[in-house]
């Protein structure tokens, strides 16, 4: 009894998994109840269109073939028929009503964000996603991890070319997760086809959406709203886990974040800050200021040999923490923690021949932020 049952489960799982994966030609069925509803709606309307198309084009090509001038067809002279005209106005209306009923039902379900088990804030930024688990003190940035060498053809394309991130959004399966979505700069759009969630993240607005994932797995998507030069390099990766696995992940994350917060108070060495700073710089800063700090004018000034920046330490720190009003430089006060801020400022003051020798302590940064 035990064995066949397991076999059955495996086979069902395999079939539904292969169905759930994008087959490359059509919309994926997805891994939520709603994504299935949407897929079914899509296919229903597709087939209705196919049938109408066959009838209309059938009649058209029949006429084109049957009534050829070259075969001596004599034209009729009719040009009106009220019955027919009323019919082909009324029948489409009925078909449309038939489509609107299930569409309305699905839409109502999509809009029901009540009774969520977990709230996740999704913040779009040029050009990364920031995820905050509300009430859990866990927050992190998710940057594309595909190296630029692959994009520029200097290396082979990896398996998940352009669709890999340094830290995916981790979600539990079988729990209703509500997304609260906003943006810091321009409009972005958070989209994962297999979850059938696409929602614009808009500065000044908080949009809501929700998901309840049925199957564990890794689901990939992209930013869907043109958001500037690196719009194509802003993937979304969701890692859906079993509930217990998720709970322990969340606890670990929380602890790590607490550890990090404690790091603010200790004295850091230049080398440690440089190493940390380099990774922050690569993930956050290099998409604008470029990998060697050479910048990209006119919007993104060079950091290497930037004399005003080198000369004025306070201004440099202030720009990184608070951003530049009216320019492309955002405030990183809430995106990066004091350790990361201190590290990246230290790094930019010492890399690429800037060599100021300055060591910025996280405690100083924390103090500045508190002001």
């Amino acid at each position, binding site marked *: 009894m035990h064995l066949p049952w397991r076999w059955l489960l495996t086979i069902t799982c395999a079939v539904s998994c292969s169905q759930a994966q*994008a087959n490359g030609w059509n919309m994926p069925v997805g891994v939520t109840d709603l994504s299935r*509803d949407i897929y079914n709606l899509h296919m229903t309307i597709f087939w209705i269109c196919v049938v109408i198309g066959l009838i*209309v084009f059938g009649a*058209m090509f029949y006429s084109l073939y049957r009534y*050829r001038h070259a075969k001596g067809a004599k034209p*009729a002279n009719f040009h009106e028929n009220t019955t027919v005209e009323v019919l082909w106005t009324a029948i489409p209306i009925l078909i449309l009503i038939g489509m609107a009923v299930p569409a309305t039902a*699905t839409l109502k379900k999509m809009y029901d964000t009540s009774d969520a088990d977990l709230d996740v804030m999704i913040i779009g930024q040029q050009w990364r996603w920031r995820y905050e688990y509300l009430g859990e003190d866990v927050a992190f940035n998710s940057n594309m991890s595909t190296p630029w060498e692959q994009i520029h053809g200097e290396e082979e394309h990896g398996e998940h070319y352009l669709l890999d991130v340094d830290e995916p959004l981790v979600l539990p399966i079988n729990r209703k997760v509500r997304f609260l979505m906003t943006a810091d700069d321009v409009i972005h*759009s958070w989209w994962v086809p297999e979850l059938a969630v696409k*929602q614009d993240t808009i500065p000044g607005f908080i949009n809501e959406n929700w998901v309840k994932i049925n199957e564990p797995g890794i689901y990939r998507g992209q930013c869907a709203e043109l958001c500037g*030069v690196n719009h194509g390099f802003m993937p979304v990766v969701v890692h859906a886990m079993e509930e217990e696995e998720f709970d322990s992940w969340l606890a670990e994350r929380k602890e790590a974040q607490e550890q990090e917060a404690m790091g603010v108070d200790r004295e850091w060495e230049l080398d440690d800050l440089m190493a940390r700073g380099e990774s922050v710089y690569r993930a956050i800063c290099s998409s604008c200021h470029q990998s060697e700090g050479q910048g990209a004018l006119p919007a993104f000034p060079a950091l290497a040999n930037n004399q005003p920046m080198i000369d004025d330490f306070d201004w440099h720190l202030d720009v990184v923490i608070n951003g530049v009003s009216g320019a492309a430089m955002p405030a990183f006060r809430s995106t990066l923690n004091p350790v990361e801020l201190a590290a990246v400022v230290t790094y930019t003051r010492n890399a690429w021949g800037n060599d100021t020798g300055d060591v910025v302590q996280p405690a100083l940064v924390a103090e500045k932020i508190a002001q």
Partner: protein
Amino acid sequence: MAPKLPPQHPLQHSSTVVADGQSHDAHSAHPKGVMRWLLTTNHKEIGSLYLIFSLIMFFIGGIFALVVRAELFQPGLQLVEPEFFNQMTTMHGLIMVFAAVMPAFTGLANWMIPLQIGAPDMALPRLNNFSFWLLPVAFTLLLSTLLMPGGGPNFGWTFYAPLSTTYAPPSTTFFILALHIAGISSILGAINIVATILNMRAPGMRMMDMPLFVWTWLITAFLLIAVMPVLAGLITMMLMDINFGTSFFDAAGGGDPVLFQHLFWFFGHPEVYIMILPAFGIVSAIIPTFARKPLFGYASMVYATAAIALLSFLVWAHHMFVVGLPLAAELFFMYSTMLIAVPTGVKVFNWVTTLFRGSISFESPMLFALAFVVLFTIGGFSGLMLAIAPADFQYHDTYFVVAHFHYVLVPGAIFAIMAGVYYWLPKWTGHYPNEKLAQCHFWCSIIGVNLTFFPMHFAGLAGMPRRIPDYALQFADFNMLSSIGAFFFGVSQLIFVLVVVLCVRGGKKAPAKAWEGAEDLEWSVPSPAPLHTFETPPVFNRTQSSD
């Protein structure tokens, strides 16, 4: 009360009645060379100017599209950087919409509306000259932004704020000015068309006797007058945000980025119909001609056009299904959008029924018109799918949308324009276009257009977002096909230029009634149509009309 009239200008039309087709010695005062074209107030010359301008812009916009397609030929960045890629997608859209498709229809309107209603010229000839000459100014300015520091517009042809305001390149102010000038040109052109149609029809021609091209343009002109000022208001608000410290669209200053989209699409959706209604008119002229049978359901065609135009003001937010509209708004805009399928369906059924029991021949204008019916309908089907709001959460901003609107605009609007050009070239030049070359152009175009745009449906459904310079590996095959198709289609359009040039220079002579089944008034004047026609109004004979 009567204003003092200015002294008569040498350019003003002579009142001498000259029989059609005779030489016009009375007009020997015409300036020669460039000044002739700069100062012309003749609807036929201005019509030709519009058409030539739009053809040039079609190629410029096409080259931009080919830069995009070349970059997308393979995954990875090979030819251009993302920054320039974004400028190309933006400029391609802006040029094709505002400088290629719209002026082409205005050119056809200039040439054909007076001829089809038996008027000697447009109602406001000097305004007509002004509307045209604004366009080269506007688009020279727009194209020059590509050479400015920081590059040209890079925020998509829909230029959503705040990407197009706070985060825009410095050239955006010039982009706004260019769009203002193009908008003034459109409004003036539309006013002229309305004035002409309402006031200058041949005696005896009722509104319901007008050819459908005239009807669709009348309705289009009202749409233009209604929505171009909305666009002007919108870009003025952008101008204020960029240069004068206001915060209409800046959330940090209490503004509302979604307001931008509401205003844009309140203009933008009627704009979409501005680009397709005149195409309906052209196809409604060509299909009866080559089926040798009157258009089926003339009256319902007029009502359907008016219904589409009215509905176009009530559907704008279907472009915004994922911005977080309330449920009630989603439902309203979903239902109203689905409703558009009804009058559009009526049109397609009427065309097909016109073919039924006709006597059909397949000259090049007819081929393009038939391709229009089939491929526009396919674009209509994908439009219906996009109208279903829950499914649109998956389709929105993907290549499925790109496929949809290119199906209604390329084998839709542009095929109709080409059908119209082949149809009326004998009237304009006195020669038939070279049919072999025209057919070759047709078959190349139809293969190219489907190869380019059909795979985009699949890429979009499989998850490829639009406006990205590089894509994940699973989209590679579709993109390679699209790129091959795009280059094939682009090169094929050179055949079109060849056919037109050859036709202007010579070819088989065309009689006044160049097509056996053609019925409208333009076929009663000689081919080529003399510079001045209908100086004495024709007597309109009701059996000539299509009903």
